[in-house]
């Protein structure tokens, strides 16, 4: 687990989340668009999506609210809630 830095950007989070999603689903990172619906990616199911979220939480040392977790449906959406949570924790 790495400690998130205050300078973490949305794009950096997108890149990291993309890597986690690719690893979890066994697909090339290049095939994952930031705005693609995560649950529509081949091989994805609700358990795998939750597992990705758990790994993202560990990576950034954040605890996302369940409302956020079940509302997001894309890598870009995950990055946004992570960034928001990091900002709230730093405040």
């Amino acid at each position, binding site marked *: 687990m790495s400690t998130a830095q205050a300078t973490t950007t949305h794009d950096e989070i997108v890149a990291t989340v993309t890597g986690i999603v690719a690893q979890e689903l066994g697909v090339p990172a290049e095939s994952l668009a930031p705005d693609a619906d995560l649950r529509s990616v081949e091989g994805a199911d609700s*358990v795998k999506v939750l*597992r990705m979220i*758990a790994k993202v939480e560990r990576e950034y040392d954040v605890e996302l609210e369940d409302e956020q977790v079940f509302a997001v449906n894309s890598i870009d959406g995950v990055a946004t809630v992570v960034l928001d949570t990091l900002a709230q*924790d730093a405040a």
Partner: protein
Amino acid sequence: MTGSPGEPAEPAEPAYLRVPWSVLDDYHCFGCSPHNPRGLALRFTARDAGIATTFRLDRGHESYPGVVHGGIVSVICDETMGNLIVLRLGRTAFTTGMRLRYLEPLRVGVEYTCVARLRPTGGRGQAAPPDGAAGGAEGGVLQAEAEILDAAGALLATATASYLPTPIEVARERFALRPDEADRVVAALDAIASEAAAPAVSQADAAPRVVAHRTVAHQDVPHQPVPQPAAAPAAVTDHLREH
């Protein structure tokens, strides 16, 4: 230990870590005591800088048919993280908060492993409770995390929790122990703390990466409340640990 010639060698006994409460004849921790017939009897081994326990639960711990009760999963995570502090730091601590994420149901009769490690303090940062709320902290709140994995290494649950170290003088008052029993537990904790503070490579660091095996064999035992120390103050936590 080896068997007779021609017989396969028995697997080596995992290097279990000895909880300090084992100096007591009949300690009844729901999580880790071998003397509690309703308990989980978890045993722990070193796992890198953390500890691990492997378990297989029976129908006495069921919720939906064939599914392990989520509350028991929570107990196992808490027990492993709490014993991490006891076994790695030689300190007693009360749970002050815990958060779980259940990713997939655990199945009755299937073997899983819970791994716990300390988290760096000051990351997310959690303010310590007001001094006196839990008898005064010996240092700040400790943060720990746990994961439950299946035999293939798939992640099934994650947990994070905070623990308030309790000065041993306070523990003496709050635990239901006779003075001589408390002395023995303190000596065991001191031995762990001394080893943890040793500059050389610790025994724990050098321990093989093996995990404990434990099958809970109390079929169809109904759920029972976790035993609580008689003198435990409600203000400490509603999820009071014995250690």
